[in-house]
């Protein structure tokens, strides 16, 4: 999956990819103060194409939980399961739902996306990516967009969560890269000097088919030097 980290104070964005094996569960957000945790499980192609050397992975399952509210939302491309205490509701992507409960709003836009707002805090948009059903290789997957992330606590961590509070970086020495449209540069961030490449990543919130290009500085090697630790530190044992 590709990560886009917005840096509003710089009017810019950072991005990186995480390449990990299908089946791995990654911790994306963990906020001990609000009790919110978001994990995602990776999927790959149904089977590996003969010529594909590197298998791309995507999120096939997302788990959003609020420990304080005893609330768990599991999202897959097939169904959406909301566990509210002992009460369990299952929806599918063909439903159009607007569910409002105390401290929780869940809106499912049929076959497109869902929006989950928890209390007055951050809200999460999960985008459904559908591929051609008879495609022998690819399968449906999910994207996660976090809005108003500043409403989570300063102690928030995780592959995405660590970037919810201001991050500073400097770009120097912009120079031609191997692709004429994508210059390389040196980025100074967290006392590291990283070689980064100007590129684009897609925002699929409005147009799930084509997406909107978001220019960003791409950090190579699974975000090494930008993320705290290494990406394997974020592998957890289960979706909740």
């Amino acid at each position: 999956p590709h990560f886009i980290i917005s840096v509003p104070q710089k009017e810019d964005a950072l991005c990186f990819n995480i390449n990990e094996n299908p089946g791995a569960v990654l911790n994306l957000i963990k906020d001990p103060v609000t009790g919110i945790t978001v994990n995602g499980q990776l999927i790959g192609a149904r089977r590996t194409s003969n010529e594909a050397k590197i298998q791309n992975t995507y999120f096939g399952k997302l788990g959003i939980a609020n420990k304080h509210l005893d609330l768990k939302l599991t999202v897959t491309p097939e169904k959406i399961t909301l566990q509210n205490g002992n009460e369990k509701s299952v929806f599918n992507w063909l439903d159009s739902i607007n569910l409002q409960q105390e401290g929780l709003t869940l809106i499912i836009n049929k076959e497109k996306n869902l929006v989950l707002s928890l209390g007055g805090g951050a809200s999460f948009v999960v985008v459904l990516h559908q591929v051609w059903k008879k495609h022998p290789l690819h399968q449906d997957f999910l994207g996660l967009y976090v809005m108003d992330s500043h409403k989570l606590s300063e102690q928030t961590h995780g592959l995405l969560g660590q970037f919810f509070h201001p991050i500073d970086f400097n770009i120097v020495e912009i120079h031609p890269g191997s692709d004429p449209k994508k210059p390389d540069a040196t980025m100074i961030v967290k006392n590291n000097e990283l070689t980064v490449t100007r590129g684009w990543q897609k925002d699929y919130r409005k147009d799930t088919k084509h997406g909107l290009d978001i220019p960003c500085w791409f950090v190579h090697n699974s975000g090494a030097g930008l993320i705290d630790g290494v990406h394997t530190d974020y592998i957890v044992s289960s979706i909740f």
Partner: protein
Amino acid sequence: LVQFRNIKKRNADDVIINGIEFYSIKIDCRVTSRFAHNVITSRAVNRANISKEVIFDVDLPKTAFITNFTMTIDGVTYPGNIKEKEVAKKQYEKAVSKGQTAGLVKASGRKTEKFTVSVNIAAASKVTFELTYEELLKRQFGKYEMFIKVKPKQLVKNFEVQVNIFEPQGIRELEAEGTFITNELSDVIKKSFSGKKGHVSFKPTLNQQRTCANCSTTLLDGDFTIKYDVERGKPNDLQIVNGYFVHFFAPTDLQNLPKNVVFVIDISGSMSGREIEQTREALLKILDDIKGDDYFNFILFGSVVYTWKDTLVKATAENLEEARKFVRAIHTEGATNLHGGLMRGIEMLNTAYEKNIVPQRSTSIIIMLTDGQPNVGLSDPQQIQESVKKAIQEKYPLYNLGFGYGVDYNFLEKLALENKGLARRIYPDSDSAIQLQGFYDEVSNPMLSDVELNYPENSVSDLTNNNFKHFYDGSEIVVAGRIVDNDLNSLTADVKAQGADNDVTFIAQGDVKEITEALQEQEYIFGDYTERLWAYLTIQQLLEKRIAATGDEKENLTAKALELSLKYKFVTPLTSMIVTKPEDYDNQAGLADKPIEAEARSAPVTHQVSSVSSSYRLSAPPTWYTSVDGD
């Protein structure tokens, strides 16, 4: 063409020349639904006790795109890297630091371009070269033709050509022949086909390769050609595989459309001698082929424009006889009033329709033959293009035949492509008349005009060209695209065209499930061929459109073609492949480019170095959120 050169004298052992033994050459071709994936592998060993140069020399069809090249020396692989042309050149120049160097690929013949790599290898070292290229085979005169030039310069212990063809429609006929095949060798070609599969193999032993019993020279030198056709039970075949579709349209049993042909012939001074003689010869042969229902006329241009008849005339026996006399008397004079000649032709066709001289339901073409650049009347190429386009209004396709190398082929190609035709170079050789006649044969049997292939708008995207001025007998129309409807179970295509007597409609339907399953079973042949076929066709058409485009349109077409060339790793005129060689033994990097017809010369193509732009637009993202997704 596989060719190996080794300099200096021959070793006593006749498979080792100058210390180098090529112990294996394999040409492996897999064709799935007309899309050919060819891999040429050759293995050599340096039997000498000092380092030696080994040359890998292959001729491939001009219509093919190289997709990969690797060189493996003693287990270490040196891959070719496909990059945007300017970036590749920059890197290449940096690597060699010796100024300009000839490229690895050169235009070499009418149908081929040559790929050459040489490398120095140490004593007792082994080297394996592997070149991959792909092409969409075109149907002409009722057959798909694939040709492989075979020319090893020495005897090879294991030499083989293996061709596997898979056609979902079923194979109707399959031929294989070589220009070098003797009676003894004819039994070595094994050919078989049954149902959807066809196979050709050619594996001569060392002794069968010898020019005579005790000779150490090889008789493998020439064209190895495979021709085949598929079953034509239905006019359409729609195949949907892995999210892409391809539609082959080639109806049979249609009546010929009556046609009107205006020949616009350059008779300027430069055509004197063999050129005009060959033109006369070709026109006389063409006159033998003109059908009784057709209308035709000749327009000659030197400094002045002449016409044979004031209007188009029917191809009656009397008119044809009179035309022959006229053709025999054609002689050269003056300069080149190309615009005048063309405009006279267009006016003549317009008048013929207005005054009902020709049948309303007939189709018209303009064939121009020229060897020079316009220098009388309107002579600015840009202005000629604008004027001709305005006058033709897409009513008649314009075919431009450029005689020889002095012609401004770029201009002729633009002019033709802007007017729904095409340009062809006629090579100044002993068979020029046959080349001219051959071209006429290709376009002389239109069966349908204004052919439109339509697909449900919400089901497909990224369509290749789906509008064709003509469908010619023995050819095939190919359209490919991407499936965007996630629930699609079957795809319906609607083909509309004008036939000889009335408008015709064909409906084609492709069932996703059946075809996908059937092809998955055959995946060993060539799994993702539909997607690559689509990419190949899209790039080819974008490059063609780019020739006639200007300004922003040209930039957009270039960007799209470049993006696809890089994504699918095709060496096209916009990309280059850098071949990095081992640093020892003075080896240098090499650059493989795709020559274009407008630059075609027998001399090597050289490269200009240009710098990479250093200004970039660093636009900011429009909204603020943090996300994770996939693309």
